[in-house]
């Protein structure tokens, strides 16, 4: 029997999109939506993290991981350089969708839009020439805007959605011009590389939400459901990091540019300082969530800037771990809704508070959690300087202080509230699973063995 060899690259796009359509069809059953989305992402992640380098055999079909696939004259191909990053992105999505399936319905369009965004951004990571990734970014920005405001919430989330769309649209021409200039010049060195580098850094900053004056992060976190913010954070930040890593490995002139590295390092440190100064004083969970996202942006920027010193598998672990931590925080905040008890007083479930605090501990990088592993791998890349480590730790502590400040008043009235929630059993199970993942992967990080696919 002759075997059929196919390129795996289109699967990265088609599978999430098909799963998105399927989740829309089964939208009555939240658990089914989450299960379909998680299984689709797990399939892609396991394919990308396969230990053998080139091919995966599925009966008579052989999937070639590095074979190109041409569609409309453009090539889709999984580079060895970004295969791990894609594996991290999809592994993170598995955590996101699996945990969100434990929640009641997120609205008709949460899973289709999130999966559509994931598929489109995956296309941006495998398409050649790089110029066409700009189009994928714009499509994902439109889907992201719809996702943020899919539940038609208040004015702040509309503003956040509009800002996200504008950021994606503003980033598109910067990438377009940078690649255009790079394609025209046979070699980019010294002064000639300055403009493309500035354009790329500016575009990446817009994508990350790292431009402080018109950032979508804060506005989106204000009123959107916590799981939606977690999804945007996990998918968009994961993509941005993978995208920068891809550029870093593909474009020699960008890697050689001292300016690019300096801007990323300074940007990361500026955000750490900002988070350290403001996070402890926040008086609402949405603001704490916004600070969490800013802290993760800084970590991602630092991770990319020091990618020469950090092993690739470690960076990819960071992408997947961030998704897990944000999803766990989103789950905890979604469950943290006031419940009227039998005696008429208002209470909050103890388990959801525990999950929120543990997730914030992980995101702050405190020891014993998965976040500590991510932070430790980042710290190892800093050899000579102590200041960035101090700033990173200070930002983490400030964030945890902010979370404690919001949690303490709720602890006083947490008794018996759990029994009043009608979905208490599912909640307990989901919270336990999230806690096991947050602490288990912190103690045994090798369980998330994405390093198996290292080329």
């Amino acid at each position, binding site marked *: 029997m002759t075997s059929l060899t196919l390129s795996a690259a289109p699967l990265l796009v088609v599978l999430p999109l098909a799963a998105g359509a399927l989740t829309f069809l089964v939208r009555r059953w939240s658990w089914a939506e989450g299960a379909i989305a998680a299984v689709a992402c797990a399939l892609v992640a396991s394919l990308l993290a396969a230990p053998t380098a080139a091919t995966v055999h599925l009966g008579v079909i052989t999937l070639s991981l590095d074979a190109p696939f041409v569609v409309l004259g453009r090539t889709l191909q999984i580079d060895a350089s970004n295969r791990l990053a894609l594996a991290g992105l999809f592994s993170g999505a598995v955590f996101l969708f699996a945990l969100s399936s434990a929640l009641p319905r997120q609205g008709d369009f949460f899973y289709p839009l999130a999966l559509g965004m994931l598929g489109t951004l995956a296309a941006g990571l495998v398409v050649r020439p790089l110029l066409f990734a700009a189009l994928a970014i714009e499509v994902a920005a439109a889907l992201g805007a719809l996702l943020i405001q899919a539940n038609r919430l208040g004015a702040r989330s509309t503003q956040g959605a*509009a800002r996200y769309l504008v950021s994606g649209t503003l980033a598109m*021409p910067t990438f377009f011009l940078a690649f255009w200039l790079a394609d025209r010049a046979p070699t980019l060195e010294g002064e000639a590389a300055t403009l493309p580098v500035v354009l790329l850094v500016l575009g990446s900053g817009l994508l990350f939400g790292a431009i402080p004056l018109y950032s979508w992060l804060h506005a989106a976190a204000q009123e959107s459901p916590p799981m939606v913010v977690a999804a945007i954070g996990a998918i968009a930040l994961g993509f941005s990091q993978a995208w920068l890593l891809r550029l870093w490995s593909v474009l020699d002139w960008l890697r050689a540019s001292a300016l690019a590295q300096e801007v990323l390092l300074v940007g990361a440190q500026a955000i750490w300082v900002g988070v350290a100064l403001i996070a402890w004083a926040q008086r609402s969970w949405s603001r704490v969530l916004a600070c969490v996202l800013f802290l993760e942006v800084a970590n991602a920027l630092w991770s990319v800037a020091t990618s020469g010193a950090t092993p690739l598998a470690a960076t990819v672990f960071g992408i997947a771990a961030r998704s897990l931590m944000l999803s766990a925080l989103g789950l905890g905040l979604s469950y943290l809704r006031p419940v009227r008890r039998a005696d008429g007083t208002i209470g909050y479930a103890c388990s959801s508070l525990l999950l929120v605090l543990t997730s914030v501990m992980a995101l702050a990088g405190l020891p014993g959690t998965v976040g500590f592993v991510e932070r430790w791998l980042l710290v190892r890349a800093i050899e000579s300087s102590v200041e960035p480590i101090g700033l990173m730790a200070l930002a983490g502590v400030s964030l945890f202080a902010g979370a404690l400040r919001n949690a303490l008043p709720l602890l006083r009235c947490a008794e018996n509230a759990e029994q009043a929630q009608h979905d208490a059993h599912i909640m307990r199970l989901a919270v336990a699973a999230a806690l096991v993942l947050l602490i288990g992967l912190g103690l045994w990080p090798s369980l998330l063995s994405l390093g198996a696919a290292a080329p």
Partner: protein
Amino acid sequence: MRSLGDRSDTSDTCAASNTSDSSNSQTTTPAASAAVNALLQSSLSVFELIRLIERLSQFAVVPLLAVLVISALAITVVHNWRVALPAMVAHYVAVAALLVRVIDPTVVLIQLLAGGLTCIALGLAALGADNAQRAAGAPSAAQRLAQPNWTQVPAQLTLRALAALLTGTAAIGASIRFPLPSVPPLFTLSAYVLFSLGVLIIATSFEVLNIGLGVLLMLSAFEIAFISLEPSVSVGILLGTITLLVGTAVSFLTLAEGGKESVSSMPAAELSESRA
């Protein structure tokens, strides 16, 4: 690019085949022949549309550029959808007439349709939002046009017009100082002007609809630059699809903004002032 002669040959061939098809269809059932005729008529009208776009492209450069700039200025200065959306339609026609110089007219037609559909979707969403806001006590777009607030409008219009003038001048200067490589000067100028006015709209607008129009202007600038660099069918279709998708997102956000919560969160006076 296909010449006009090629296009008329194609349409003539099509017309001839239409005639033979019509004679064959007489042997089929009346319903089927009516359907075939309707299909043929619609395909004929498509060819007429393509011809129209080609004729528009034969205009001198200056009128095309004038339509493009005036429509963009109207969208920038007047933050009222009843003025901005017709200006947006004129803008898409001018962009199509510009693009047909470098790309197949059929692809331009797809883009024009995408632009038209986007405008329709935005119009419906704006109407819905307008109704919701009128119910909440804020003046509608038509009322603001019929009875302008003379204490605020002149100052705001003048400010926006001055800002647009300055931005436009900067864009013209930038197109001369930093021309886009391998792009004709007319396309460079159009792209710069549209992009800068798009950014200005985003920076000065409060309503999502106006921000969305700024985003769409920026997308048009991107289209002009990208298609003149790579005049391929796939790029044209991709960009048309993106315009539709962004239009859908903006329409959805406009409807969401028009809901009760967004209106009630802002004093009516502030709302009407920001939209004057």
